[in-house]
């Protein structure tokens, strides 16, 4: 279900193809959606604001870098926190792998050391928010099996038509990494960008809904969502991930996404 969570950046190449007369199946739609949100690289500032059911709020700020790996399909991401003070300088390196599980490495500035995180923890909370680590990865169409359910009005955007697609992990690895057994995805028909994703936990219970908004079409024809909102249906929590100062032209060196560079620039 990494899928919808393509949270960070949705973009669409096929946006400008309104005459979708050809019948597409669920996987083809999701492949187009993945392509629509595929930026070869970008960096942005971000704020993660979480609100608990009790009304208590907390906020974390970070700089985010993401770049496509040489295979042109998988991503490498670096997150470096700047606030609050207790996480200042902490950094997370996320390396997607084509085969097997992804690698997550956490840099702890107080110890000047890097620690690996076990694979099953990828489905756990990202820095105390309602996002999981895997929610922050770009979902890959080939990692899921899809069924095109129907076309209907987009949730939250009554003037738009969406494909409603049901999906479930294609492998146990994907299931374990995401912690989701299935998902429902609404993909905008005109742009192939995700509008909403609903995720179900391993028992089949409705767990999270993720809504994408503040859509922006970039100069390369791709789409980017500046705002991604997660609602946890089990505990009533809500987290908003808000991006700003997006830069897509600045060259990001591959050397940034290495364990050696993880602590560089931290305190």
């Amino acid at each position, binding site marked *: 279900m990494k899928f919808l969570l393509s949270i960070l950046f949705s973009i669409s190449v096929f946006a400008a193809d309104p005459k979708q007369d050809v019948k597409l199946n669920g996987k083809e739609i999701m492949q187009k959606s993945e392509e629509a949100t595929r930026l070869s690289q970008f960096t942005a500032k971000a704020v993660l604001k979480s609100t608990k059911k009790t009304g208590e709020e*907390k906020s974390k700020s970070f700089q985010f870098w993401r770049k496509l790996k040489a295979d042109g399909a998988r991503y490498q991401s670096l997150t470096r926190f700047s606030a609050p003070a207790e996480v200042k300088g902490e950094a997370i390196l996320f390396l997607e792998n084509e085969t*097997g599980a992804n690698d997550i490495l956490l840099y702890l500035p107080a110890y000047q050391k890097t*620690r690996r995180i*076990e*694979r099953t923890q990828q489905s756990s909370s990202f820095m105390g928010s309602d996002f999981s680590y895997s929610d922050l990865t770009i979902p890959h169409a080939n990692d899921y099996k899809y069924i095109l359910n129907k076309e209907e009005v987009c949730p939250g955007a009554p003037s738009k038509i969406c494909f409603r697609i049901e999906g479930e992990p294609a492998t146990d690895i994907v299931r374990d990494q995401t912690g989701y057994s299935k998902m429902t995805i609404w993909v905008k028909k005109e742009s192939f960008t995700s509008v909403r994703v609903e995720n179900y936990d391993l028992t089949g219970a409705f767990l999270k809904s993720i809504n994408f908004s503040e859509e922006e079409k970039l100069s390369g024809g791709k789409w980017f969502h500046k705002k991604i909102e997660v609602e946890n249906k089990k505990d009533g929590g809500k987290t908003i991930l808000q991006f700003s100062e997006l830069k897509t032209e600045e060259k990001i060196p591959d050397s940034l996404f290495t*364990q050696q560079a993880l602590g560089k620039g*931290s305190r």
Partner: protein
Amino acid sequence: MRSRSLALLYFLPLFSVYADVPDWISGRASLDDYESISGRGTLQSGFTLFGTARPKFSEKLDSKLMLRGSAYRKSLDKPDDFSIRGEVKEAWVEYPIFGIRVRAGQIITPWGRSDAVNPTDYLTAKDYTTLSIHDDIRRIGAPGILSTFTPNEGTSPLEFSFAWNARYAQSKMLIPASQIPTGISVETDPRTPLLFTDNEEFALKVSYLASGWDASLSAFDGRNHFGQFVWDGSRVGLQFYRTRAIGGDFSVTFDDFVLRGESAYFFYETGSSGLGGLSLTEPNHWDSVLGIERGIGARFRIIAQALFRFHPDLKDSQAYVGSSVAETAIVRGLGRANAIIQNYQNRSRLGATLLGSYESEDEKWRAEFSMIGNFVGGDYVLRPKLEHKIMDSVRLTAGLDYYGGPEDQPLGALSAYRSVYLEGAMTF
């Protein structure tokens, strides 16, 4: 707790009002109070300001300054007097030269992947006489150069590191008075060694990062950062013997856990059996750690490690016979003390560490239990603590350091340092 120290904790939130600092500055202001539960009163009570600045002068020129300043009403160093301590933990600049990142200045280079016990941490030392829940305040670096090279313009999974210290760092140890032979005074705070000459250190490390695992091999030529008691015929001094070591570490990720290991073999200039051929000082040894870490649900985390030390040529220091009865007694006493403090009383020493932590969903409460124990000897230290976040950047921590087991064993000998503590800390 002393009421004055406790009262000061209320002022931390006020301090936080003024702590709006730029991104490149970070740090911590803390007040702590350690009260003995062995009838020794206050062990430490004071205020510490710990700060780091990371000015980046250009895209290539990086730098770091890490300072610590403490004002103690009481401390282990000065149990009866007010004292002030200040130190430059790190002060370096880094610049790439022909693809090699060269860092020069006062540097802390902590090597090793294990938790708490790191056999391959050759280059740094620790100040165990500062009571603190923060690891960074205890670390002691050294002046020198650290150069790192990652092939393929920094993208290779291989990395080469070379470190040179212009002088070695000295650890400051908790020395149980009960282990010092009666009637003699010992040097516990030796002078800072001179730069260069025989005090230089060299270390090399080759690391490899792969998908799902990483590993490194390392070598070291320098000094033992733990001083050992030696009788020179008229006085007892601390000697930091020249040491060579080879070692390595690794970590592997599995579905539910991470496996980590670290091992090193140490060769001393005093010979394979230690000083005098009778292990009057620490003999050559193999030091290893193997551990697993896993999360249990979203809020619990456990790290369990096995510790193994093996001294193949250990000889009984109590076989020493000197030129007089008095000298024999002193040297045997120092040999016994060294064996306890350096943890080499037996040919094989097997131990374990355990760390369990829980954090509440709102991140306001954090409970942690850690312990280190020796299976040979039966000594241990227990360290439970409870943290409460009273506001966004202010935490209050209460805990216990309990050393137990026989007093002729390394951790049991520290029973005089059993304490409960309270710390208030504000991060910025």
